[in-house]
């Protein structure tokens, strides 16, 4: 019996080559496909990719793992003129320890984040959160850069990025720049990334590796989060000296909750409940078929309490409670 990871590895490489050498959709005459018509680009390098984006960026989309984009294309909700496929570019899937944190290539898959030892040791919150993303088939293809660029407010990576004080590195034909996560997510599916830019990597800080928490409410295993909460703390001599609490699914973008973060600072007892109340009272999540605003506020309370309890650890929180 083959482990499914082995199957994934064996198949990934040939598929990637095929993308470059054999599939040149623009030269094949009429193309039968479910999405609206678009021009397809498969650049070999980041330089080529950003050159294409400089040319057509305004109405182009970038195809990474395709786990959100392909369904949107097939439902004809996305109607780009051009699709720029990153599948043939080497060097975008590296994981590298830098300055105590982790530099993560944009094409690193969720599954790599879930299974990689560096991720587990330097950013254990990210490793833990990765397991909540979709199902394994989705995690095998979906990428961290793709998720962050897509900026679904209910997705895990944007919230994790905020909780771990992350940054995003963007390349364009002219320049490369790094944007702090706190300034990156602007609105629903909208980020500080310009149309001519490509996310090449993200950086997550390693300073929260000893005190972190993540809790998510999913209707079913693998569903998008109704609410997810990521917590990163720095503890010095028994006291919380820095706290970052980020939430997914509560607003039109991933957000931090300063009031809840403030509630964690120090050594007072009952901080998990205080933070949970603060978080609940900070947001008015929009209701939909998966639950009303009132229901979502209760989830914010529950998941914040759980994530904070995990971050502080049972000893710290129960001692403080005692």
């Amino acid at each position, binding site marked *: 019996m083959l482990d499914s990871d082995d199957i994934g590895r064996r198949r990934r490489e040939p598929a990637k080559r095929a993308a470059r050498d054999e599939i040149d959709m623009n030269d094949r005459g009429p193309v039968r496909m*479910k999405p609206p018509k678009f021009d397809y680009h498969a650049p070999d390098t980041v330089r080529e990719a950003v050159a294409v984006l400089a040319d057509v960026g305004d109405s182009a989309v970038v195809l990474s793992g395709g786990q959100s984009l392909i369904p949107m294309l097939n439902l004809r909700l996305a109607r780009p003129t051009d699709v720029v496929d990153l599948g043939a570019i080497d060097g975008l899937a590296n994981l590298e320890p830098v300055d105590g944190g982790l530099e993560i290539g944009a094409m690193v898959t969720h599954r790599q984040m879930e299974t990689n030892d560096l991720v587990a040791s330097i950013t254990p919150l990210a490793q833990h959160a990765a397991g909540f993303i979709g199902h394994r088939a989705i995690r095998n293809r979906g990428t961290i850069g793709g998720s962050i660029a897509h900026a679904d407010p209910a997705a895990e990576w944007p919230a994790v990025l905020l909780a771990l004080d992350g940054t995003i590195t963007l390349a364009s034909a002219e320049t490369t720049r790094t944007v702090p996560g706190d300034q990156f997510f602007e609105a629903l599916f909208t980020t500080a990334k310009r149309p001519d830019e490509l996310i090449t990597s993200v950086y997550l800080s390693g300073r929260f590796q000893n005190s972190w928490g993540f809790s998510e409410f999913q209707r*079913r295993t693998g569903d998008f989060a109704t609410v997810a909460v990521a917590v990163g703390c720095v503890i010095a001599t028994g006291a919380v000296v820095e706290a970052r609490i980020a939430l997914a699914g509560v607003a039109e973008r991933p957000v931090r909750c300063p009031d809840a973060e403030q509630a964690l600072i120090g050594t007072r007892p009952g901080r998990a409940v205080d933070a949970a109340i603060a978080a609940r009272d900070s947001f008015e999540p929009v209701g939909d078929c998966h*639950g*009303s605003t009132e229901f979502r506020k*209760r*989830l914010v309370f529950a998941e914040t309490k759980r994530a904070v309890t995990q971050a502080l650890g049972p000893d710290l929180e129960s001692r403080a409670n005692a």
Partner: protein
Amino acid sequence: MVESQARRFFGSRVSRIEDDRLLRGRGRYVADIELPRELAAKFVRSYEAHASVAEIELGDAVEAEGVHAVFTGADFADSEIRCVSSYEGFQVSAQPILALDRVRFAGEALAMVIADDEYLAEDAAEMVFADLAPLPVVLDLDAALASDAEVLHDGWTDNAYVRRAVKTDGFDKAAAGAPHRLTIDLRNARHGAIPMENRACVADYDRGSNRFTLHTTTQVPHLIRAGLALAMDVPESQIRVIAPDVGGGFGVKAQLYTEEVACCLAARELGRPIKWVEDRREHFVASHHSREHRHRVTGYFDDLGRILALEADIRVDMGAYSVFPWTATMDNGMAMGILPGPYKIREYSATGTPVCTNKTPYGAYRGVARPAACFSIERLIDQIARHRGLDRAEVRRRNLLGADDYPWHSPSGLVYDSGSLAESLESVLQLGEYDVLLTEQAEARAQGRLFGIGLVAFTEQTAHTHQEFKQRGVPIVFGYETAKVRLDASGTAVVSASIHDHGQGLETTLAQIAADRLGLDLDKVRVEYGDTNQVAYGAGTFASRSAVLAGGAVTRAADDVAATLKEVAAHELEAAVEDMVIERGRLSVRGSPVVSIDISELCRLTYQRPERLPEGIEPSLESSRTYDAAPGTGAYTNAAHLSTVEIDPMTGKTAVLTYAIVEDCGPMINPMIVEGQIFGGVAQGIGTALFEEFLYDENGQPQSLTFSDYLIPTSTDVPDFAVAHLETPSPFTIGGIKGMGEGGAIAPGAVIASAIEDALSHLGETVVTDLPLTPERVLTHIDQAIAQGEGQ
């Protein structure tokens, strides 16, 4: 009378013959069929739930790349789907093939684009603009019945398809004399079957012979032929319907759809085959919905919790049109009939109203009305238990029919043939370790956890034939099924049947029966189905009837063929016909097994050496027979389910921890297949209980258009099952077989509701009445229970 014959395969867990093909990806589905010169169809669908059609502007669609034609309602106005119930006062709806002057649900087809391939058709379909003038929408079934509601069909007096009532003579007296009464209102959400394969069809028209061939995803090929003949006014002999491998049906593929008619008409118009493959987004709006029942149920009972009389008002939201062949009264009829369930209830009064609304039309789904009926009666029994301070199992014991009560003439006119209700209940309490669970529950509560136990007993009406369908008022009364058995010259049996196998394992179970009757190995039997040219008539696969009815027909036909074999063999062996024994590929003389002849040799003789046949025997080893299990109200399988749940007190999320089933479907042809059917049914029922709902906004816009918004249970939501069987044969059917294809899906809503209510019962009282039990709804119950508990 069916002769006894040694059972070699009947009752054994043989592997499914069809799985070799299906699991290796060698199945052949409708979308796999490619006919020469075929074109693709795409439908333009209404974005309004209720509107008058001002104009359909074809725009550039007609001239778009690859487009051959664009049809609108006027092109097909000579055809319609009209399914008229024989109930007095039934108001008739006529569903156009493409909308004419008015659309009545979001998703109703307005135009049909034909192009070289489905993607070009989809591109062109986007260029069609329908100018629709919105009309007031009618979405809620109770609002639809209000006196000021917009009436949805011309000439109707209100939005009730029909209003029906049944009442036993002694009801009023029994109800008036009962010491206690309890009323509950119950709601089941609109949801559907959601097979893995969406619908698809390929229509071909031969101008030379004026004949249609429709390849389509259906469970009921002969009924589709009948429906097409009516809709297009063409003789049935001019229509051949082929249903190849079908990737799940569960009822949603047991109706005639407008798309099937449209593809046939377009094929005739253009003289080229027309293929249409539904996508999932279309499926959510264009394939029939189900399950949306509201019941008000009143139980009249004594101090011991025994029900003296039962009263029910049943309303079902049947959507915009009456569907063929069931009409719009199917669910109401079934619910009114089966609601008293497995209990010894003599006095009964029920009213029923199928309601027309601006929603997708409503068809069959595994269990048809029985999940809602089971939910109502079982919720009532639980409330009676609480009212009397009794254990839920004990109240059921006091009300269940006993072994001596059969045949039971139910107050709704059904005849229950046999069963083991009390034994099933006791067995499931043992299998599920009820006593242990009660201890576990006490421990869980001490830890602040919400742990509940649900218990349900039910009877599953199966294999109902003419009496049941006559009672339901359908225009075509479904009774018998047909099977043809033929031995070829090589000694191989071909069984052709009017039923259709789309997951039920009938290719295996019918082969098991035929192999036993003909003394053959399983690999010498092939089962064919899904082609109206194979057997003359029949209904198809639905209502848990196929094993019983096709099984009976196969038994009869195979016995005919075996009788001929015996004649030929007796002549050849110079022995008496009545001394012939057919077994393991040979016919031998009773008591002298060495005097024998191979079946394959007999087959060769029969076809190829006619001079050696006994006088009066024709060179034919073929028989076509039908079977209609008298008296036609069905064979009654019964079961008891016991499940445990744990609820997250902070979020209301419910996990199903354990699930035990004791089922009695009579003698099992193949216990492995029986269990597979039960497990699949329970998994779907967990969807009913916890997840599934087609939601609409206030304008009638469907909100559940992807699997992100319409949730079905996945493997992580379904627990492992414990299952045990009892086998009480039916006195009514050949082999004593009962159906069981739907039972699994009937009980879970009631079981899980019972478990959730039980998990909260120590906090305070709350009555669980609405499905699905979403986390938000469960949180509301937790709040109610706590508030009620604190108020005391």
